[in-house]
């Protein structure tokens, strides 16, 4: 397979994952705006920070209010991470690597793009937001379904999956990092109404509110949430889960190519960091520092994969 093709597959799935993550982020932000209208704290700002687009958002002279944030994150063409930009970039990559995709995957991503483009011809309003987000989520889910159902389990599949998990691990780490202070086990804050809503938002932005409460019988705690999102391997958006998937896919490539790559060492080190640990231990060593290091090392791993497998554009 061409290195350029491997890169295209990797990025196609990174962009799709990013579009989905932004959808979740918006859903969580929107819920807070609805339930806590007029209570002062501005959730929209942290949504923009988590999405990593504070610079361009402020440069565009926009305000931290629902309409501006929603449209910037969903359909602003000047925001390279807007959902529309991501879906278009995913499709462009898919077009480039079309020969590596099953026709079902290609058609699914093409249809996702057509559907998203169609619902985004006009600005998104409070009335249309739910429908728009649901269209994006549903059509993106079809791409993933087609990938699982129709693609050979070979190197192509591995590059697709690694794109997904790099993006997802980074996203979960960012969500935690933006809110790390509400998760710090400082007695003074525990249990206040503000924290409870913030915790719920964190869980919602990774679609984990139900699974968390099912596992914990409704008991919510900062340590519990942090442990769930960082260390729990049953949770498909946890950092530990994503990293072990990265390692697994690299392992498949090793057996297919018959050669071990330096990126595997990085993946092993990252997995070790989230294995067999207690969350208290993470807190003791510095929660914020831990998240910062993790975000940086995930980026380092992605870069190493690009080098090892000769991605280039």
């Amino acid at each position, binding site marked *: *397979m*061409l*290195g*350029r093709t*491997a890169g295209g597959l990797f990025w196609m799935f990174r962009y799709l994952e990013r579009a989905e993550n932004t959808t979740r982020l918006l859903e969580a932000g929107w819920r807070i705006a609805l339930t806590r209208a007029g209570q002062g704290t501005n959730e929209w700002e942290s949504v923009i920070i988590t999405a990593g687009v504070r610079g361009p958002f402020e440069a565009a002279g926009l305000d931290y209010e629902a309409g501006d944030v929603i449209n910037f994150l969903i359909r602003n063409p000047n925001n390279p991470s807007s959902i529309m930009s991501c879906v278009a970039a995913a499709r*462009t990559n898919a*077009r*480039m690597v*079309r*020969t590596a995709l099953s*026709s079902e995957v*290609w*058609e699914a991503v*093409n*249809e996702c793009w*057509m559907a998203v483009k169609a619902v985004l011809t006009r600005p998104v309003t409070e009335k249309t937001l739910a429908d728009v987000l649901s269209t994006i989520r549903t059509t993106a889910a079809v791409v993933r379904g087609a990938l699982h159902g129709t693609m050979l389990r070979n*190197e192509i599949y591995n590059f697709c999956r690694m794109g997904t998990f790099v993006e997802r691990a980074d996203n979960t780490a960012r969500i935690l990092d933006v809110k790390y202070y509400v998760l710090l086990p400082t007695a003074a804050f525990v249990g206040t109404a503000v924290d409870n809503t913030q915790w719920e938002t964190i869980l919602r932005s990774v679609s984990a509110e139900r699974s968390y409460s099912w596992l914990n019988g409704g008991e919510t705690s900062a340590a519990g949430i942090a442990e769930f999102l960082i260390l729990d391997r049953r949770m498909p958006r946890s950092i530990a889960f994503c990293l072990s998937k990265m390692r697994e896919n690299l392992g498949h490539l090793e057996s297919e*190519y018959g050669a071990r790559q330096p990126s595997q060492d990085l993946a092993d080190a990252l997995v070790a960091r989230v294995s067999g640990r207690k969350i208290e231990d993470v807190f003791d060593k510095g929660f914020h520092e831990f998240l910062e290091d993790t975000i940086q090392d995930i980026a380092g791993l992605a870069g190493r994969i690009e080098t090892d*497998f*000769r991605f*280039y*554009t």
Partner: protein
Amino acid sequence: MENKRFFNEMFTEEAAARAPYEAYAQWFEGENPRDLRAKSDEAEAFFRRIGITFNVYGQKDADERLIPFDIVPRIISALEWARLEKGIQQRVRAINAFLHDIYHRQEIIRAGRVPKEIIAQNEAFLPQMVGVNPPGGVYTHIVGTDLVRTGENEFFVLEDNARTPSGVSYMLENRETMLQMFPELFTRLNVRPVSNYPRDLRRSLADCVPPAFKGNKPVIAVLTPGIHNSAYFEHAFLADQMGAELVEAVDLQIHDGRVCMRTTRGYEPIDVLYRRVDDAFLDPLNFRPDSLLGVPGIFDVYRAGGITIANAPGTGIADDKALYSYMPDIVEFYTGEKAILQNVPTWRCSEPESLKHVLANLKDLVVKEVHGSGGYGMLVGPAASKRELQAFEKKLRAKPSNYIAQPTLALSTVPILTKKGLAPRHVDLRPYVLVSPKQITITPGGLTRVALKEGSLVVNSSQGGGTKDTWVLGE
């Protein structure tokens, strides 16, 4: 009046279905026109979903467009096809022999059948190809012979596309679409399949491995200028269907005398390159130095037998419009037979007598630029305004050798489905021909292009043309 002037392939002047269309016309009678129109919309959605789009140069907003598809098939009888097939084979054989000759001993010039100037002063002639022997002796691995029809048995070759003919993906996807929409028709009519094309193409290319090839399975790649090229869909489609790699220039590098692609495991040599990049852009070292689409040094590897390039560089000299009028001689010279397919009578404006005739009859003629393509830079006399005619006359006088002229052909029509029912529209036909050292294979069918505007004779997709599925009936 319309019916009398133009040959309608489906209906006689008495509105009876002609033989090849009988079964289809019968079926059509029983269909509800509204349902058929709904099918038409369905076809469009289908094309959008699978992404058969093309980009039109110079149109920014409409960067991805569909070629309109008409659901009424164009049907050709077994007998008609057999004759076309023979004629095309003969012509393509002659073209390959001509190319070999023109890049070696130039017997045809010595024999005085083709003037020296027309070769020597032609940009399509590639001096670098002189003395080069392409692997397997094949120059034009893929040819798309453009045919037009003017009567029951009147077929003309309009153009021999011997460089990189496009459109074959439409032939294949049009058929897929028809199979999905009208399965019942394919059980009633004995329509010959076209789906073998990608396999035939692969085999044909694999039969032309270069001397440097080792191993048992040649590595084939399709070279595309990239996703912004108007035919990118087709490049990806063909690579996919053949199980070949789709590569761009950035993927290629020369190592140890081979052209290699950069894979996730390192560099891997390519044996046969089906390039969809023009000669001039193929190799910035040997041809246009500003090309970003090419591979520096690939031509040297080619000359040394390290890779097969399909079609070979320099084949453009065979389908050049200045040379077109010599085709009957060329066919006779190399095959010893009279040409089976007719040429359209052509005036070479470079010749003073012809120029005089052309200028005097401009309003009845079609004038083409010698190096033009895609229907650009051409004058359709009968459809042109006075001012257009005058403007063109100026251009003609300024550089006569740049033009050839042909009578306006009474192109045959095939009905399309309109809001008011069936209506005749002009068509042409491009069958696809594959040449290997062993055989010449012509896929039964091809791309029928149709001028959707009433009365229009221009079928190019860039100028309002659409396509139809082409059915060749079995015996």
